[in-house]
């Protein structure tokens, strides 16, 4: 615990901004209209580097101060050849599947798709005909 006393409301608010990192995941979880990013974390996904991808997604979300984005691990989706696999679900929209994601693409997914609202076409998994 810090021994320094808070002397103004502004200082309190600064501490609040810093402390938010500690509870953000919970508030995001409680929020109804959150963007969910699922990362395939079955054996195949992890072997292909899903853990690093997940780390990059989380870093990028934190760097961009995004409030309503939840990154969750998910099981094998059956497209083992395309791992690491990332699925972005924006409320009210069709889920978008990204194949062979690396750390670089993970950052782009946050910056272009989640923030910019633009689907990165050439990285999409072709799911037509599959459900």
């Amino acid at each position, binding site marked *: *615990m810090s021994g320094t006393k808070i002397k103004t409301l502004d200082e309190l608010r600064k*501490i*609040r901004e*810093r402390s938010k990192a500690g509870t953000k*995941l*919970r*508030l995001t979880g409680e929020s109804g209209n959150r963007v969910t990013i699922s990362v395939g974390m*079955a054996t195949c996904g992890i072997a292909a580097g899903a853990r690093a991808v997940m780390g990059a997604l989380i870093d990028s979300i934190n760097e961009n101060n995004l409030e309503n984005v939840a990154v969750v*691990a*998910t099981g094998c989706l059956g497209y083992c050849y395309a791992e690491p696999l990332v699925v972005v679900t924006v409320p009210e929209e069709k889920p978008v599947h990204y194949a062979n994601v690396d750390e670089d693409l993970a950052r782009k997914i946050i910056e272009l798709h989640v923030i910019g609202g633009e689907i990165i076409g050439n990285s999409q998994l072709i799911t037509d005909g599959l459900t």
Partner: protein
Amino acid sequence: MNRIRMHMLVCGGTGCVSCDSTEVKDALVREIMEHGLENEVQVTITGCFGFCEKGPIVKVYPDNVFYVRVSPDDAKILVGEHVIKGRVVEKLLYGDTPSDIPFYKKQMRIALRNCGLIDPEKIEDYISVDGYEALGRVLTGMTPQQVIGVIKGSGLGGRGGGGFPTGLKWELTAKAAGDKKYVICNADEGDPGAFMDRSILEGDPHSILEAMAIAGYAVGADEGVVYIRAEYPLAVERLQKAINQAEAFGLLGDHILGSDFSFRVGINLGAGAFVCGEETSLMNSVQGGRGEPRIKPPFPSETGLWSKPTSINNVETFANICPIILNGAEWFSGIGTEKSKGTKVFALAGKINNVGLVEVPMGMRLGDIIYSIGGGVRGGKSFKAVQTGGPSGGCIPASMLDISIDYESLSETGSMMGSGGMIVMDEDDCMVNIAKFYLEFTVDESCGKCTPCRIGNRRMHEILSRITKGGGTLDDLEQLKDLGEIIKICSLCGLGQTAPNPVLSTLHHFYDEYEAHIVDKRCPAGACTELLRYTIIAEKCIGCTLCARSCPVPCISGERKKVHDIIQEKCIKCGICYKKCPVDAIERK
């Protein structure tokens, strides 16, 4: 860089702790360390989720998955499946979907807003969810009169039982002449079955400290006291930690947030007497005197602790203050009914499926709380009544399930809101016996200072005992009513003034049950053992002698292969024969 991707919140309320939730937490932490995931997953102890029936509870964020009845052994599968592979562990879910639980659907959490969300032992967690922002705004931008104006405008009424307007209480204390004033938080919580105040203090202690400081600013007090029963060790511990942290951060102490306002809070432990929840007894107790009430007026707002003007509020009342300051009086007064504003926390207990703590907007239909949220009566039995208001309240019969939950409607039934206990009774509960139970409690808890309460309630209890043993007369019922009315009018404090309520309300709603005990010498619910009669149904008896051999008296005659018989004069109504009979040939009436 913080790469925590998942939070696992384990309930640390007293209910879950007693079901090993601390061990669940330890097991989860061990499992996570074993997989080297400590930089990805954080395990936190939090306050009560309210769904005590299904504890220990573990909630996983950000996916918002709610696990129930988790045991330490489940840690392996939770980490192996959910944390690592992202697969929800279905056998630990409540219902089919992870977060769509009827228990929570109709709730509205204001007082309980942070319970189950933050770590109560971490001031940073509280600050991160706008903690101390209300105090900051009050100290930097509002006059005491403005603060009082907002609380008055919100329509908040005291949650300790009386429903007295909180803003008005603050105003009276602010206006009272005196150089020294106090703010007291009443955390005595003496009603049997109630645990909302304990849960708030265990789950969100800073919200109470912040609200007390706001009250202090509004009324002109620089000292606060939390009076809490020593039987709440976890709440006391977390509250003390919270006080220490708030002082270290300068949020309690001198010149808070650079203002001229200074405020300190101390804890006073009570020994758990019900009467010490009554405000004047409470103050006597804090001063080291006996927990005895005194006549009002003067009210505490003029002559309170150490004879100084004192504003005393209940824990749940305080828990509503910060949201009102942050969201405005209109927001709060928009919730609830015409006269009862905001929400109320209820402790659901008794014969109900979902025992636990719920917070609902005032005005909700009683039946909705019991069926939609509470999940109905346990074991498919039929609903008979619900007891509200504890030892000062009464029983509301099944025919009144449509009433709205607010101060006025509950009082009209002859019961009251009280602190929010709700004990559900089914067909097996005898209303005479229930009335006797509550009266026994008040007889025990009466401080003895005034005669109507000390002696009157004892006389009523004797009459009830007589009735439940089959020795009552119809005259006794008139006596009960007369005595009850006199005790209500003549007693010194609220304890005596309300003690006859459980008797009067059951007499009103369940008169025929009293009559059955007296006229037919029969207890319709089969709960008053001394009125029970065990008989053997001759057609069913196979003469196996099991009952005769099990009878401890013994008072069952009968040879092998012949119909047995119970000698009524000797029977002690223990019911062993009834339980032992292999062919259900014994009747209990």
